């Protein structure tokens, strides 16, 4: 039974997977087109009774949400860039050099990857309020960087190990300077790995919630997940289901775009090194 073409079981499995993955997404999208009045009185059917764009108009003119969106993008991008730079150095060293303490670095990375983020809330809050980092961008960027470093280091060192480094020497033999050899030969080979690490790091920072609600208190630094948890609609005692769904859709758009563009890379990055034993 070598890779049978399309047995009914596989087709059913295929449909099940699609429904599994996409139904809840379809649900929040549908919910985002229901009016607030409709959800307040109760609207258990899947599709809106009357489609409306009002939620999108409200959310996209909601200053707090836009601030949170800006914070989310800013914090996630800065944390990603910095973490990937640091991780690139470390991964290069791990993949290519022999040095004392290599095992220690890997153990440390592993320990951080397993670290319960919530356990840091208490000491970090106390530390940040003394250092005036509470409710600031760096107050989130710094922990995000360190929590994404392990993943980035793993992904990158797995990629770096696959790079045929001898090509660099071959280029030098052909007369290229070491910088040229690095730029023309190694960078193109390493770039996909760096890019993958960046995507995974970005997902982490974009998703993070526990630190975001604990180390911020206003829209000066609050990110979208935290802002959604505090989201208040026109009626303080009824959660604005449809507006929350709209915010949820908006914050999911970047994720979907990245997935659409880079699905192959993400899968490679997620599984890199996971199965070699």
């Amino acid at each position, binding site marked *: 039974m070598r890779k049978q073409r399309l047995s009914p079981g596989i087709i059913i499995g295929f449909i099940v997977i699609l429904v599994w993955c996409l139904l809840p997404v379809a649900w929040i999208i549908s919910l985002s087109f229901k009016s607030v009045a409709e959800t307040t009185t109760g609207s258990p059917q899947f599709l809106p009774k009357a489609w409306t764009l009002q939620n999108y108009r409200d959310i996209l003119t909601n200053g707090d949400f836009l601030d949170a969106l800006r914070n989310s993008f800013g914090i996630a991008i800065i944390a990603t860039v910095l973490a990937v730079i640091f991780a690139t150095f470390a991964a290069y060293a791990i993949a290519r050099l022999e040095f004392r303490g290599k095992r220690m670095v890997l153990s440390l990375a592993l320990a951080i990857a397993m670290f319960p983020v919530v356990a840091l809330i208490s000491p970090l809050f106390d530390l940040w309020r003394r250092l*005036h980092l509470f409710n600031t961008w760096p107050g989130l960027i710094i922990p995000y960087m360190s929590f994404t470093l392990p993943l980035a280091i793993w992904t990158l060192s797995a990629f770096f190990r696959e790079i045929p480094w001898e090509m660099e020497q071959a280029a030098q033999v052909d007369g290229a300077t070491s910088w040229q050899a690095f730029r023309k030969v190694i960078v193109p080979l390493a770039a996909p790995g760096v890019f993958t690490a960046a995507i995974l790091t970005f997902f982490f920072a974009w998703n993070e919630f526990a630190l975001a609600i604990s180390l911020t208190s206003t829209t000066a630094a609050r990110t979208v997940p935290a802002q959604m948890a505090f989201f208040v609609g026109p009626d303080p005692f009824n959660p604005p289901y449809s507006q929350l769904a709209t915010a949820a859709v908006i914050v999911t758009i970047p994720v979907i775009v990245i997935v659409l563009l880079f699905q192959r890379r993400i899968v490679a990055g997620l599984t890199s090194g996971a199965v070699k034993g």
Partner: protein
Amino acid sequence: MHVPRRSRGVTRFPGGRSVRRLSATFAALATAAALLSACSSSGKTTLVWYINPDTGGQAVIAKSCSTDQYTIKTQVLPTDAGQQRVQLARRLAAGDSGIDLMSIDPAYTAEFAAANFVVPVPQSVEAQLPHAFKGAVTASTWNNHLVVAPFWSNVQALWYRKSFAQKAGLDMSKPVTWDQIITAAADHGGTVGVQANKYEGYVVWINALVMGAGGNIVTNPGAGVNANIDINSQAGVTAANIINKLAHSKAAEPDLSVSNEGTVLAPFATSAGAFQVNWTFIYQNYSSDKTTLNDMGWAMYPESVAGKPSRPPYGGIGIGVSSTSNHIADDWKAVECITSPQNQGQYAVSSGNMPSSAAGYQFPALQKAYPASLLQLFQKSVNAAGPRPLSPYWSDISGAIQSTWHPADSVTSSTPASSQTFIQQVLEGKKLL
């Protein structure tokens, strides 16, 4: 994956330059981050007012109370009073000077005052404030000092469907008891809407039931951790029995264990709608639903014990001035403006949250927007209201009550005793909450 490593000379690594370049990039990004996160400031003073969420009424007042000297800017806090406390307290404990004014809920007024997070109201300012109802003054006082300026005073009333009360043969012109309305609703296919989710609103209900039966949850709340917890009393048992009766009756709404001020609104407007206890502002929620509005009656909060006047729950907002504010003199001027009778009245019209002073009720537009009998009921209720104990440890006490009294259908006559022990252990740090 085994890359041949013939030469491991470091000379090949184009290190120095790119490392420098990268660290320069890092520095630039860090600076950019610092700049982006820093607040911009202009010449004129900005007073930052942290407000509880509303329909925009406080933002309007902030604008109208801004002067040539200062601009008042609002920042919205989370819906839940517990969350508001957390947000504010963490910033105040961090010595943040970015908070000037705060809309403070009675649940944590004492805690903030005891921690010196707020400046007590100076005599000179107090003299300028409108004369507030007794319940409002009590809820705003710590250590014999007024610590927040009463802004609005909310109170709960009993709302009922006239047609239902008629069907059940209940005379709503006289005070009714919890027993009566629960029985009436259960017998005639109606429900009684209450707030029994695991949150402060549930403790508001419990406190009202205990006080209505002549008791107090805490007798000397000023003593902090050493306060006397008196929930284990005849009054506590009466309260537990009422909750038990409703929770096991057909009059309970299906989502009783997660019910709040919002969840009870919709059932009230259905054919099963009968009674709900809720705050003043819900009158506005039915303004577009004429069927319900025309059939809606209101009465004094139900009695825990027949013949003993009820103590309706008190809620509201007082305006506090942060002790870490850099503009305290301006803050007090702003407080005087915010709490003026005119603004109290206007705010009541826009939000449904009633004034904290009789003067506020004189606002013409308010008298036009609400039936006179309703405004009278509100004022009568505020004067009779039973505020929650003013303890700096109220959040712990309230939390301990929530965890021992929730869900409502687990409450029995032995709940007061077990919750009393638990509250004491929590205050002594011997139990987790």
